[in-house]
């Protein structure tokens, strides 16, 4: 099975405190560290496991500048065979639809049976997978937490839905799936793994290479625009209790008694 996995380089929220810059219109980038979006990492692991079972190869693609190459290398160190960097000045400032349009260009350059994305990203809107599927007229399932290969034309997939339940469906190939965390246990990639693939050529593809109309993507083509960032007011609802542990506990007991929290 030929699988394309779309990945994204994002600020690592585990290892960052997200602050705004002086102007308040963007996040402060100076002290950020980046990594591959957690959901995407599960998608790549799943793709590799599928290929281990039924054969084929995994290609990873990302849209971004040269810095984005590092996440491709990390995923290639996991076991993805090929990487594609979709990069073009015209891509900058793309909204979800713009990104889906670029990825459609990438997907159509290859002959993929399965396209995967992460279900969401910390700085995203959980939209690219569904848009890509619709643009390509392929069937789609989101929040996938189980994949079984039925045959070379069909998959059985599970979606994570409310209440911890799992919605099982059959989906025809080729299709697009967005992957939920917890579907597998992604393997570890260390510095050594990345160095091993450091010299593998990663083709960079621009709007022209991909047959993407530069006007339809990037800031120019964006119909949904982020105007600014701001820090939401803290504790607007909560009445904050301060003091020593002793004092806090005393007040909490009072409140709990009043609210029927102690039986």
């Amino acid at each position, binding site marked *: 099975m030929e699988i394309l996995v779309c990945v994204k380089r994002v600020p*690592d929220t*585990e*290892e*960052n*405190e997200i602050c705004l810059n002086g102007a308040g219109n963007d996040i402060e980038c100076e*002290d950020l*560290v980046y*990594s591959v979006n957690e959901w995407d990492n599960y998608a790549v692991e799943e793709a590799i496991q599928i290929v281990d079972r039924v054969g084929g190869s995994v290609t990873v693609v990302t849209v971004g500048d040269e810095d984005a190459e590092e996440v491709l290398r990390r995923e290639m160190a*996991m076991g993805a065979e090929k990487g594609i960097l979709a990069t073009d000045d015209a891509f900058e400032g793309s909204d979800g639809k713009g990104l889906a349009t670029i990825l459609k260009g990438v997907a159509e350059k290859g002959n993929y049976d399965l396209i995967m994305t992460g279900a969401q990203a910390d700085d995203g809107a959980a939209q690219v997978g569904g848009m890509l599927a619709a643009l390509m007229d392929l069937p789609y399932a989101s929040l996938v937490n189980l994949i079984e290969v039925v045959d070379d034309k069909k998959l059985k997939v599970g979606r994570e839905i409310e209440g911890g339940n799992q919605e099982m469906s059959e989906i025809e190939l080729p299709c697009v799936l967005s992957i939920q965390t917890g579907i597998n*246990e*992604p*393997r*570890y*990639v*260390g*510095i*050594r*793994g990345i*160095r091993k693939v450091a010299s593998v050529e990663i083709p960079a593809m621009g709007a022209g290479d991909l047959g993407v109309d530069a006007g339809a993507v990037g800031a120019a083509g964006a119909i949904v625009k982020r105007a600014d960032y701001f820090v939401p007011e803290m504790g607007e609802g909560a009445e904050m209790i301060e003091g020593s542990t002793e004092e806090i506990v005393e007040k909490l007991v009072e409140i709990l008694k009043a609210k029927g929290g102690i039986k």
Partner: protein
Amino acid sequence: METLIVGPADFTFLGIPTIIFSFLIPVVGVGCFAYIIANRLAPLIKAAPDNRFNRIPERVFQLIKIWLLQWRQPRYMAAGVLHIMIFFGFLVLSIRSTELVVVGLSDDFMMPGMDGILGSIYGFIKDYAATVVLIACIIAAIRRVKKAEDRFNVPKEFDHSSEAIFVLGLISSLMIAESLYEASHMAAAGHMPAAIFSLVWFETLILSVFPVGLLQAIHILAYYVHDVIFFFFLCFLPMGKHFHVITSFFNVLFMRLDKGNIKPVRYDVSDEQLDDLESFGVKKMEDFTWKHILDFYSCADCGRCSDQCPANLVGRPLSPRFISIKAREKIFENYPLRGEHAESKPLMGDIYSEDEIWSCTTCGACEQECPLGIEYIDKIVDLRRGMVDEGMVPQSLQKPLSALEKRGNAWGKMEKKRADWTKAEGFADTCAVKLLEKGEEADTLYFVDSISSYDDRMQDLARATSLVLAAGGTDFCILGKDEKDSGNEVRRFGEEMLFQTLKDHNIDMILESGVKHIVTADPHAYNAIKNDYHNDQLPSIEHLAQYVDRKVKSGEITLKPVEDSSRVYTYHDPCYLGRHNSVYDAPRDAMDAIPGLRRVEMAKCRDRSLCCSGGGLMLFYEPEEEERMGVVRVQMAAEAGANVIVTACPFCLVNIEDAIKVAKMDDTMEAIDFSELIARHLEG
């Protein structure tokens, strides 16, 4: 000596001269033995290189101490004494047994130099030796059958008790056969052996009433029973745990000489060439070094390692002895005495499980105990290197490893906040800590390391350490954001390339700082810089305990009387200060320098100290276990009558403070760090 009976060289049985057997048995025996040993050597030859032919004088010293003088045996008194009896008996009797083999060919043969008084003295000694060995064997067999020690209780598939008893039987038979051979000869000649009340003396006493014909039969029969058992035993040794009878000499000769360090990925590849390696660590059997395979052969299955292993104690899926035994059985299976050598398969999932290998805290208790000098930490680390290379890392460890890669600490805290502990209210105005990142200079570097830099509670240790250094009149500074994790556990968890990166960075920063001395209060940092960084230009390093001990003895630091004389203190030896670096007395002496401080020792202390649960990345790993090591340790402190546990390691403090809560002993037990204890008792 006038005799009425003839020896095996001259005897004929049904017209056949028995000398034929005297010739055939050794030839077949030695032939089989050579064939078996050649087979056993095959995996050693295929194995990875090791560096063990250096530092010969030190090796000979170890050989004399640990092998010949059986230095570690009495740590388990009963078993140890029995082993020493059998061991020395064997050494003494090996001369006689060899002599006997030749006597079968030539009746008058004597080992060179044995024909005079020396021979008589030897004969006298060996008669007692045989007696002692026989007695020891009988006691040992009884202990085995009655499972006298917990160590003997192992899962059925690993139970080698029957083999042990069989071998004790063989040894006993050798003793009896040899003595009967001699006794029949004595009885026929009408003499009594000089060794009164020895085995042969009793036998002679009994045999003296036997007719000569019977004595002749016993004489010949005893000889060939001895001859057959002797060569059978020789060939049987390499089949199992008694291989150590042969390999122990070499295993101890080639045992590790240094403590605290970790072997390089490969001995024939420098750190700079690591990138070129196709594969990392141990994935299949032959990836082990030849010495490590020799270790597997040498394991006597005595179980002392596992008896001391804290992981085994709390029910984690690790027992060091089985690391050896499972490997040995696999080697025997892959290198059969007959037929083709099998293709080597990945060890993980075959004989070892991932959890088993991650369960080790690298505390070193097993290696400290092994009477044969078998090592485990390097093997565990090599297996982990292999797992890391294959991406087999538990999710719980992936986040801290990635944080270490990106931020230089396992908690993922920002670099620029590494020195924030110096700004604490009430501290900053009394003790100004110099920051190298701000261009300040000093003679001494205080290497803080990650946990004391970032963890709210452990920052107290950093501040206490600073106060102590200031009191000692030391002009010191810290690296601040230029310091990265020492990488002690990064290396021990198998992430060698990440360790190399951290190491290179820290070395650069330390050398750039121009300091002449390093002090740290974190034994893990101390160990990494001292034993793993391998850089000749690095300045000397001291742990705070050594620093305080030195300053107290020189009078530069004086300590005031103990705050609360009702408290009873006990010192918990951190593995990376104690076992791995042999610093046992400095912290104790420094504590005892506090007037009025009452100190007791726990049942397990010094080189038998019980690991707290492991530091560094081990804090993040979620092992399967029935109980926490820390809890066992805290209970041990209570049993010793202590109500304050003093550690000299931030990780020990984390684990022990936690354990006190888990054990619900908050009211009766307290844990503090050595740095805090000293800081509280600084004069003035």
